[in-house]
């Protein structure tokens, strides 16, 4: 069920909200968590009841492992933790990477093993990470296993189940406990207003921006994939910029919706994006882009690998390994690995520059340079193969001149739209900043600078009118809405 679908917005969400509030009104707050768990299972089952069983079994296994870890010590404890890791990573590897492995082996050896054509369970990459983090923290003595129902909702909570934010157990499980005890004594009206507003912002980003830019990006990448056209500069910039903004609007829009939906039930989630295209370095970009993934990779991969504690060479190696695996996490394809590798390389250069010169470039140079590096990397992320990626990158740098004619590109409409949208992301405050007076996410929200600081949401007749206009526009344009890009990861 897509967050943008009529089934979700007109049936599932109203019913779930009604059930939740009825339980609170009936002084049965202890039933709110089980109720949301059941609703979340229904949400997932709408897509695939078969995979719901897989997810439920995996949840019970992880909960059992967590409790066993808490009781065991020494080698047994370590063996149990490794067993838990193998279980989670094994499921991920089978469903996500088996065919990729076979394809790669076939390409290298010509063994021609048949593909398994495995269907990828929706959200597997996201909930696998959440469970690994849970086990790792219990193994490290940083957390204690909680009740099954809290853990079940932590795994299944529908706002973040499919595509994150990748929530840490310590962030939400205490909130679930609080939800079970507070009943109607806590007024959720403001949470509801904040939640709906974030949901509307996310819907608008997805339906009005991402879905409208998608055809401009797809056209160029599809023509490049056909292999018969040299992509000229205009087309290449249209494709790359449209995709750059589409991906951001799509994924950050989804995150806004997830944060808003959770808030409707009084639950705060962590921020996932913080105006990443305003970054003046790649290091900063990774602090602003898909922040919950960066946090996971840092805490549960980079740091355990040794982080920056074993000298610069080991540090750079750890960084590169982390980014390559981060790329592979996004998709079972070598272009994703290349994307991760490119960002690993960028980070190495960034760190090396900082260590060698300790000079910060002026924003007017640093920001476009960072953006250019990010855009070039997105080409590899989006392209279906290296040949088409190289075709577009060559176009970006003018190596193909005007290139071969591609319908609809000469007018430059797509390029202009993408530039306007990109400009907006650079000038306007982000969703958290707009909502910052009402603490929309866990943790502090950076105040916007300049004139953008005036764009702050408060409940008023004007914001209600803007919200209503956005909802109506979303309704008019939502027919035929595409899936969220990050669902595939």
């Amino acid at each position, binding site marked *: 069920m897509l967050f943008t679908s009529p089934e979700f917005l007109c049936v599932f969400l109203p019913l779930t909200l009604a059930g939740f509030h009825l339980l609170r009104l009936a002084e049965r707050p202890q039933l709110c968590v089980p109720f949301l768990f059941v609703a979340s299972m229904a949400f997932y089952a709408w897509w695939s009841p078969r995979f719901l069983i897989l997810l439920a079994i995996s949840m019970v296994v992880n909960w059992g492992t967590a409790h066993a870890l808490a009781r065991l010590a020494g080698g047994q404890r370590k063996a149990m933790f490794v067993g838990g890791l193998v279980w989670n990573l094994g499921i991920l590897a089978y469903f996500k990477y088996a065919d990729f492995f076979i394809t790669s082996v076939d390409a290298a050896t010509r063994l021609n093993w048949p593909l398994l054509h495995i269907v990828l369970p929706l959200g597997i990459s996201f909930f696998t990470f959440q469970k690994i983090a849970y086990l790792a923290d219990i193994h490290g003595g940083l957390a204690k296993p909680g009740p099954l129902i809290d853990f079940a909702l932590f795994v299944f909570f529908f706002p973040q189940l499919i595509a994150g934010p990748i929530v840490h157990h310590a962030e939400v499980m205490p909130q679930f406990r609080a939800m079970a005890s507070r009943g109607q004594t806590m007024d959720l009206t403001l949470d509801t207003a904040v939640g709906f507003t974030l949901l509307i912002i996310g819907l608008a980003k997805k339906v009005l921006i991402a879905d409208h830019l998608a055809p401009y990006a797809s056209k160029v990448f599809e023509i490049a994939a056909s292999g*018969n056209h040299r992509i000229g500069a205009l087309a290449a910039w249209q494709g790359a910029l449209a995709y750059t903004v589409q991906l951001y609007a799509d994924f950050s829009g989804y995150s806004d919706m997830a944060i808003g939906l959770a808030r409707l039930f009084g639950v705060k989630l962590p921020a996932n994006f913080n105006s990443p295209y305003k970054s003046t370095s790649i290091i900063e970009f990774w602090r602003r882009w898909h922040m919950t993934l960066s946090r996971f990779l840092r805490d549960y991969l980079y740091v355990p690998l040794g982080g920056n504690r074993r000298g610069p060479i080991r540090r750079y190696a750890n960084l590169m390994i982390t980014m390559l695996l981060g790329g592979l996490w996004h998709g079972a394809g070598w272009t994703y690995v290349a994307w991760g590798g490119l960002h690993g390389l960028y980070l190495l250069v960034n760190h090396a520059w900082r260590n060698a010169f300790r000079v910060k470039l002026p924003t007017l140079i640093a920001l476009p340079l960072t953006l250019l590096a990010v855009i070039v990397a997105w080409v590899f992320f989006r392209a279906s193969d290296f040949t088409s990626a190289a075709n577009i990158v060559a176009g970006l740098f003018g190596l193909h001149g005007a290139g071969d*004619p591609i319908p609809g590109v000469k007018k430059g409409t797509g390029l202009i739209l993408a530039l306007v949208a990109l400009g907006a992301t650079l000038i306007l405050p982000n969703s958290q900043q707009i909502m910052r007076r009402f603490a929309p996410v866990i943790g502090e929200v950076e105040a916007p600078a300049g004139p953008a600081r005036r764009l702050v949401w408060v*409940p008023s007749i004007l914001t209600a009118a803007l*919200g*209503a206009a956005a909802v109506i526009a979303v*309704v008019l344009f939502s027919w035929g809405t595409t899936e969220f890009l990050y669902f595939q990861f």
Partner: protein
Amino acid sequence: MQQMSARLYLVSLAAMIFAGLALIALMGLGVDAYGVFGTRLIPASRFPPQLRLVAIGDRLTKGLEIVQRHDDRLLFIGDSRTQHGFDPDSPALGGIKAYNTALAAATLSEQLDTLDYALAHEPSVTHLVWGLSFEIFPSRVATTTDYWDSAFAGHSLLSSRLHHLFAFDFVEASFKALLQAHKQVEAPMKRNGVVNFPSDPVEGPGIARYHDLELASESRELRGPRPPAEMQAAQDRLRRRLAELKLKGIDVDLVIMPVHAWRLEFYRLVGVETELADWKRGVAATVGALASAPGNGKLRLFDFERPHLFTEQPILSPPAPGERRFFLETSHFYPWLGDLILDRVLGTGQGEAGPISTPPFGAEIGAGGDASGKVDIEADLASAAAGLDAWEAAHPGDVSHVKEVIGRP
């Protein structure tokens, strides 16, 4: 900006959303551009009876329309070529009541779904004219259309109607219709399902460019051959369905649809000519094999996808005085060429006459050499290939132009 309570904000937000959507619904119901509800609050005389929209809501519209129709005897099935080219009001039908179910970008898979749906709602149908196109024959149902929201995919009619009422295309068209209520508004599609072409295209340099764009944008063909297994699976599905139709006593005329010579040259240049020939052989083999299958339905196959005066009509220069353009662009022909095809297929002799000196257009495929005038598939293919050779030799400028358009040296 005066701050209000969160409760008042939520109430205001809900009220404004409801008011806005109610306004849109009222406008849509008033104009009723789809003719779905039959409630014309604005006097009907203000609008032409065929006021319809064609865009994203195409499948939704036809899903609703098929349910409302009665007593159709003939259905057109196919993709956009059929949708654009075959007019159920054509004189070639000799007054037979017909409906055009064809849909842009409809693959065979989707055509079969549409056919099931149409036959379920229109038991009076006894005859199908089925336009076949090679390019998307084996493909999956396109994700870019409104198929998945339509009744063809199993959605309810209520869902389709709501979708209509609140889709931007509909709202935009309704609003335009309101603004132009004092004029006659041209609709892009007729109630019988065919695209409406009120007049010939405006001549000028833009015509050639339009052809160029259409050809160059055909990325599907540029991706190389379709997977043989998928092609075979599609052929098998077609065979099974034709056998069922024959058993039910429904006559079927399969028509391999014409394309402009530029596109035939394009097939040759991108290396799919052999694949195209194999596809035609497969369809011909199916028709041949079903000749002895049980059932009373008649099954015939016609091939119009070949060089001919009509399909070789010059693009880079304006047509001769008194001559009409036959092709909207290289892939789609106008209904006046469709009339000639229908006349050939249905044999009523009522279609619009072509140029007097025109050789026969299209061929019925079958065991050759008999008195029925059928042509063996191999002879048909050889004739088509030779025709293209001759066209290439006579039109080197066009060949160079096609090469340039599709980016092939």
